[in-house]
């Protein structure tokens, strides 16, 4: 075991796999600079800068995958997938089905996501539930370096398209790049155990669709993903002192969902609190409610999500994104 940073874990798996599997190519805007350590090792044929043309290069990744490559295509932020949505919605996600399940599209879209560093509502979205709505896409959102590496390895091994999301608050390189994180004058609410952590000496894939129970408990189940997991753990610690025993589930992958773990836990506690940094309506939090009801679990349910466009103002931003205060008060409402 060794301690490394969040994005370094992903890069380390990517380097390892690129060395093993010549099919892997990496492209995106500025990746020769952003992933320069991969660039100088694997060269310009396999690490390619693109023009600012997301719809063309995400679209190209689809057929590159179909024709035998394994593209890792990187976008600056998940928000910018708006311009490339057709490639995901109508091509990456559908080719396997259209071809009568004869032709698959093994590609990984690597996209920073999430807010909490004051960059405004066009640059801090999560959108994981939104992407997961589309049949044919898997969506992965790790919350710590070990999961990031293991899930990225699984994403590379997956025969179908995977959206792999890196929360910017967990990534020191993205924070430097996008938040002026090099300034000593600014600070962020970084979950330290998410930004840096122990990882195995030898990477093993973490299967998609397997949630992690980060903490067991009996009174209330908190279900979350990404930075929300750390907020849940923090809240759990506080609630524990009040005598409330909280179970915390890190979904790790949004699509597929680990129904078993979710249902087992909520069946036990009878109370589900979803903490979801993505938009509240018609997304992950709703889906979790549906799978619980479908399983016949009668539970008390609450959710703390992002309800509106994320404000630039730091205070309003932190009110709009899930925060500890809102989580605690929702938990209290459920338990009382």
């Amino acid at each position, binding site marked *: 075991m060794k301690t490394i940073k969040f994005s370094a874990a992903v890069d380390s798996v990517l380097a390892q796999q690129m060395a093993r599997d010549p099919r892997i190519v990496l492209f995106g805007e500025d990746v020769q600079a952003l992933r320069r350590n991969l660039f100088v090792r694997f060269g310009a044929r396999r690490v390619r800068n693109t*023009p600012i043309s997301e719809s063309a290069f995400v679209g190209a990744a689809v057929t590159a995958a179909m024709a035998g490559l394994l593209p890792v295509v990187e976008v600056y932020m998940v928000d910018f997938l708006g311009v490339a949505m057709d490639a995901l919605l109508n091509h990456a996600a559908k080719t396997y089905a259209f071809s009568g399940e004869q032709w698959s599209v093994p590609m990984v879209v690597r996209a920073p996501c999430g807010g909490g560093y004051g960059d405004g509502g066009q640059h801090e979205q999560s959108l994981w539930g939104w992407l997961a709505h589309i049949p044919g896409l898997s969506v992965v959102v790790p919350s710590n370096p070990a999961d990031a590496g293991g899930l990225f390895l699984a994403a590379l091994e997956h025969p179908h398209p995977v959206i792999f999301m890196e929360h910017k608050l967990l990534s020191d390189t993205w924070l430097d790049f996008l938040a002026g994180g090099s300034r000593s004058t600014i600070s962020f609410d970084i979950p330290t155990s998410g930004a840096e952590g122990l990882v195995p000496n030898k990477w093993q894939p973490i299967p998609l669709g397997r949630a992690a129970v980060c903490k067991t408990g009996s009174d209330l189940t908190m279900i979350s993903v990404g930075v929300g997991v750390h907020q849940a753990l923090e809240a759990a610690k506080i609630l524990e002192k009040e005598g409330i025993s909280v179970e915390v589930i890190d979904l790790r992958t949004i699509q597929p969902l680990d129904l078993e773990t979710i249902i087992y836990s909520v069946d036990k506690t009878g109370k589900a609190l979803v903490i979801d940094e993505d938009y509240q309506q018609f997304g992950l939090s709703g889906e979790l409610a549906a799978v619980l009801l479908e399983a016949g679990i009668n539970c008390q349910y609450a959710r703390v999500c992002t309800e509106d466009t994320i404000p630039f103002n730091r205070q309003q931003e932190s009110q709009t994104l899930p925060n500890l205060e809102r989580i605690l008060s929702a938990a209290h409402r459920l338990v009382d």
Partner: protein
Amino acid sequence: MDLWNLYSGMYFNRLFEEQVSNLWRQGKISGEMHPSIGEEAITAGVLAHLIEGDALALDHRGTAAAIMRGIDPGALLDEFIGLPTGLCAGMGGHMHLFSEDHLLASSGIVGASGPAAVGFALAAELLRPGKVAVAFFGEGSLNQGMLLESFNLAQEWQLPVIFVCKDDQWAITTDTNPNVSPVQRAQGFRLPTSSIDGNDLKVVYQTAGKAIRNAREGKGPAFIHATCNHPEGHTLDNQLVRVGRRPLKEGMAITIPLLKSVFKIRGAPIIERIRAMIQTIKMIRRSASHHRPQSSDPLKHARELLIKDQERLDQLEATICAEIGELFSATGSRLTAEDSR
């Protein structure tokens, strides 16, 4: 250039699509149907140069290319009908043709064949050096951002992509602005371009040959603008074509509401209304004159090149006719058998 071989593919496709049209009219094929009848010379002239390992990215009008690329016509037909025995197990239909063996993919999204060809070409560069990717699309697609982006991306990466614009002067009901030059647009992205008569098989063959040879040699992408005509219009039996062909019956259904509207109180000044009315009538007229068999028919054209050997020609056509007859009658009886079950 093996003219006989190319003609035989073109002729086969024509008969195939005519029979498909019949099946569609009989309600055996659902949804829209975009025939590629009329673009056979472009398809044949370009595809003649493709070898195994080359890739094809098609638009919504991909039948001719699928046929001439060697996809089993029976599998194609079954796919159009939506049978489990179809090329894609009936999951895609005529707009979504996929064959991994042929590295052939199509899409119903306008412009999508551009990025698709770039991805194919990238794989070619890394895995199959010397192989190329061809994108087919219409002139209307030249307004779709992703296609324009793909011109640039192919050029930046110097990939072996041949972009083939099949210009039929129409995008559904919109006839192309005559001031727009597809070639000029492609040149904006520094693509080497040629503009040709897509009904002339020899010219297509030569032009495509040069572009593909260059691409194989690592000289990067090229853009070919080839004119053509789709006698069936955008889709089989679409309203515009119906009006053109049955002006009395279908025309009235359109004209009466139009006349009611143009005289309604409140609206644009009368001069603007008249202009709009004239424009509408002109559009319908132009559609009618475009969307019918033309003397420029590429098949006729190609046939003339072979007419010297009338006997061989007759025999070839008879053979193909028989093949098609067999294929469709077999399928026909299968369908009838199923219907009666």
